[in-house]
């Protein structure tokens, strides 16, 4: 139906440049904050709050303005396109579809909460400047449709995150920051060469040089444009870049360090949106551009995903440090996303996308809560806690609820996403799904065990007489938990926007390869409806 070529299909946005505003607004806020003198921290905070709140407002408007009926493969909404960097053929080309929509919204939501959670941070000026730069750059990653613009933001994200970890992290922050930077930059090295190769192969085929993904994707995926082996190499080059970011199993070692050492807001953003840049990259570029390679190499990624799910969960269970535990649990959760994606079924991809959103909500909330606990107790050792249920009941209640949400208890968003991902995987890759299901059980093991050790029993020593959550702290966590609960009972609003995108993606893969997803998977909406109806 929709295999339309490029620009003609999507209506160019002539009105207010909403997507540019989403990217540029935080950058402007950063510049304004930079100009405020250091001795006026309250003013800088105000700039931070106003900017992130305004960005959130724009994102809400985007959600409302998004037209659910309008979809199709590579059919983007609110498209903006301008020439940039003359000679190179790079364009300021932005657009949004069901794949990126909720990542943008999640990003806009997590930043104001992150700032609110770090209101006592030292040197607020540079912190807020880096946070705002980070927000703008992450927006850019999810909205860019030009491969070079995508790469620019994908890579630029490292800089503010590096400084946030190195400047405001815990004891071993310098090591963690350096490791984070070098690992991801090394991954991006492959990605960059991959991007350049696709563009120049396109040029060599007699076209004008461009990095426009709506041109390169149909070309590269069309039969006969690229040799099979070439597209496999290119797929791998892209995959390394994205796998480091996710992080997929053998590339994951930077993550526990970065997460554990990062300050609370840093961890929230890192887990909430930055890890998803990798899975997003797979869905936006790798799979559509090299569908045959994706089909052929899917088993490799599925194996890595399943290893990530089980290994992440087992290692998480062994962690003495609560924050490190959550960090490893992220590896497991992101494993579900990759599992769903490379199951190459409608449900799998929808489930992956849903998990991306859900994981941002629940893990974001968990990191916020751990940060609050560590503010009170100045340690994150699970063994040091005990009986918190009695000393800080509100905190304990919220933590346990969030833990259940993260485990994927029915009624929370985690369930919908992981269920769909497993369902999708079961249709095409049965045994992977079976093994991955153990990950769900293991998630219960590591989180409940930690909850048991930290919250039950009688409080002793320093655990007695802790102050319970303040209003500000409640204001950061409750929205995330409430959203997770809401989406657990009523996933329709998300699935209605995500499902068409996954169907279009699978349709594209089916059109360009001999791969066919099982007929039962074509009933995607029905399955979604059954889940949603509950």
């Amino acid at each position: 139906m929709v295999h339309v070529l490029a620009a003609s299909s999507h209506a160019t946005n002539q009105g207010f440049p909403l997507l540019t505003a989403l990217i540029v607004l935080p950058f402007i806020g950063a510049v304004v904050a930079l100009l405020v003198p250091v001795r006026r921290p309250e003013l800088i905070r105000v700039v931070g709050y106003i900017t992130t709140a305004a960005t959130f407002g724009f994102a809400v408007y985007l959600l409302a303005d998004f037209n659910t009926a309008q979809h199709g493969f590579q059919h983007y909404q609110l498209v903006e396109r301008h020439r940039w960097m003359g000679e190179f053929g790079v364009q300021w080309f932005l657009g949004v579809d069901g794949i990126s929509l909720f990542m943008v919204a999640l990003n806009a939501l997590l930043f104001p909460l992150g700032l609110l959670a770090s209101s006592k941070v030292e040197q607020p000026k540079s912190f807020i400047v880096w946070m705002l730069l980070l927000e703008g750059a992450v927006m850019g990653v999810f909205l860019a449709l030009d491969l070079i613009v995508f790469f620019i933001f994908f890579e630029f994200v490292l800089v503010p995150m590096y400084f946030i970890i190195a400047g405001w992290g815990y004891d071993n922050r310098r090591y963690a920051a350096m490791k984070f930077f070098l690992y991801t930059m090394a991954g991006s090295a492959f990605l960059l060469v991959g991007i350049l190769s696709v563009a120049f192969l396109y040029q060599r085929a007699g076209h004008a040089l461009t990095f426009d993904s709506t041109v390169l994707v149909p070309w590269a995926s069309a039969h006969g444009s690229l040799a099979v082996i070439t597209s496999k190499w290119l797929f791998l080059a892209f995959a390394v870049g994205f796998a480091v970011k996710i992080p997929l199993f053998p590339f994951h070692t930077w993550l526990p360090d970065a997460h554990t050492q990062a300050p609370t807001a840093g961890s929230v953003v890192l887990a909430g949106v930055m890890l998803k840049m990798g899975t997003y990259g797979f869905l936006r570029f790798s799979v559509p551009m090299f569908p045959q390679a994706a089909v052929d190499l899917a088993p490799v990624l599925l194996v890595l995903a399943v290893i990530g799910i089980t290994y992440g969960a087992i290692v998480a269970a062994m962690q003495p440090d609560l924050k490190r535990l959550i960090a490893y649990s992220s590896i497991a959760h992101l494993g579900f996303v990759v599992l769903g994606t490379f199951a190459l079924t409608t449900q799998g991809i929808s489930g992956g996308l849903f998990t991306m959103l859900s994981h941002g909500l629940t893990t974001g909330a968990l990191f916020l809560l751990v940060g609050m606990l560590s503010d009170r107790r100045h340690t994150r050792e699970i063994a040091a806690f005990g009986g918190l249920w009695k000393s800080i009941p509100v905190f304990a209640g919220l933590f346990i609820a969030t833990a259940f949400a993260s485990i994927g208890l029915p009624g929370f968003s985690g369930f919908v996403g992981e269920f769909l991902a497993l369902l999708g995987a079961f249709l095409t890759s049965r045994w992977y799904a079976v093994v991955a299901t153990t990950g769900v059980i293991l998630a219960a093991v590591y989180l409940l065990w930690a909850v048991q050790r930290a919250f039950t029993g009688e409080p002793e020593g320093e655990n007695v007489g802790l102050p319970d959550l303040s209003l500000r702290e409640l204001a950061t966590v409750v929205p995330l938990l409430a959203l997770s609960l809401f989406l657990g009972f009523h996933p329709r609003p998300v699935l209605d926007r995500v499902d068409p995108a996954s169907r279009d993606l699978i349709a594209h893969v089916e059109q360009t390869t001999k791969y066919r997803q099982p007929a039962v998977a074509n009933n995607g909406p029905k399955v979604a409806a059954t889940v949603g109806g509950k």
Partner: protein
Amino acid sequence: MIAQVVTPIHTPPIDWFAIAPEIALFAAAVAIVLTRALARRSKRVFEASLVVAAAGIVTSGAFTYVQWHLVRRDGPYQAIAGMVAVDGFSVFIRTVVLISLSLALLISVAYLQRERFEAAEYIALMMLSATGMMVMASANDLVVVFLALEILSMALYVLSAFDRRRAESQEAGLKYFLLGSFSSAVFLYGVALIYGATGTTSLVGIARFLSTTTLLDNGVLLVGMALLLVGLGFKVAAAPFHMWTPDVYQGAPTPVTAFMAAATKAAAFGAILRVFVGTFPLYRVDWRPALFGLAVLSLAVGTIAAVVQSDVKRMLAYSSISHAGYVLIGVQAATSRGTSAALFYLFVYALMIVGAFAIVSVVARRGDQNHSLDDYRGLARREPILAGLLTLFLLAQAGVPLTGGFVAKLGVFAAAVAAGQYALALIGTLAAVISAFVYLRIVLAMYAPADEAAEETRAPLRIDVASGVALFVAAAGVIALGVLPGLVLDFARDATLLLAK
């Protein structure tokens, strides 16, 4: 009667306009030296020579601009019996040299005043060296290339040893002189061999000869090309001809190092591009592997050796070797895309490196001694603006997006990929990761807490107006070239196409 056999010597008509930018700089330098000689006692000689230098640079820049305008309208041409080319390429390199010269002079003012060297000779020498670089940019004959090489080097040898009180500076000057003369000799030998093989030293003549004649035995030509590459490779600090770089960069007065790194590289790469890409395109098969090897080696040596350094000037010296490697990636692609990418890289590099050394010079304090990583510890706490700017220049050198350094690296990698050299592009991108480690070490040191007790005794660092202007220009340029590089990218592209043939 003896027949009159002496034929009259044909003196070519001199197109003064073609060499006007060089003349302006040279005249300013001579005027400074004369003023110094005549008004020995006056204390205002230093200020006066700065004014003369500024006038010389502005005049030279104006002539360069007019040349650019004419070249674009009427096309490139050769002048003075084909010795000099007036084309977009020379205009581009001249622009880079002039920018580097202006910025280096601006940061020199504070240095000279601080060290009580207020010497007009210093300024004159820098102008003379820049004159040599500008000649090199437009040299269209191997003999002129050699002349330019000597003009620029002689002045630099003296400048490197200018800090008479520091043994390192003396050592740097002597080392640079000895190795530099040796490399000049090698270059000259290469010129002789090329002349032997082709019967001319004119670049256009050589290209014409090679396109019409098939050499049955081209050994002499190839050895000549190799020797030219050694001589020029030495000047751009490409491995394995880099041995002098760390010592000389470390020992020379910091503003001189900045000038050397930015301008010499630009001029010498200008010569490499004109000689290899412009003159020997038919022998591409032979010289491309050599340049490929130089590029890989420079990247490896420059990045890996920088990791173990603890002296910031030495780190930047090694990183300058690796930057030579990146430019070589563009050069060895032997395409117009590669050439314009190399030109753009040189433009950005000049801004990044002068900016970085400007801060190094300030942090060094009186005596130009404090270059160890420990001297940068806690800089962010004491001097947030300085630390922020140095962070910007270092991140730009690492190739972080939204800085000019990214666009520059993107350009050379794109050129390599367009030429089908995926492996080289990958080596380059991975080398960038290692060098990021080096730059981040400096950044981390700056943002680390300082030894407060030791800091109490030190006076706060001061940035004078001139250095401030230089830093502002460099920083604004680095960001502007990262966000809106179109103007300079187009300049580089046009400069490549408008090559005198």
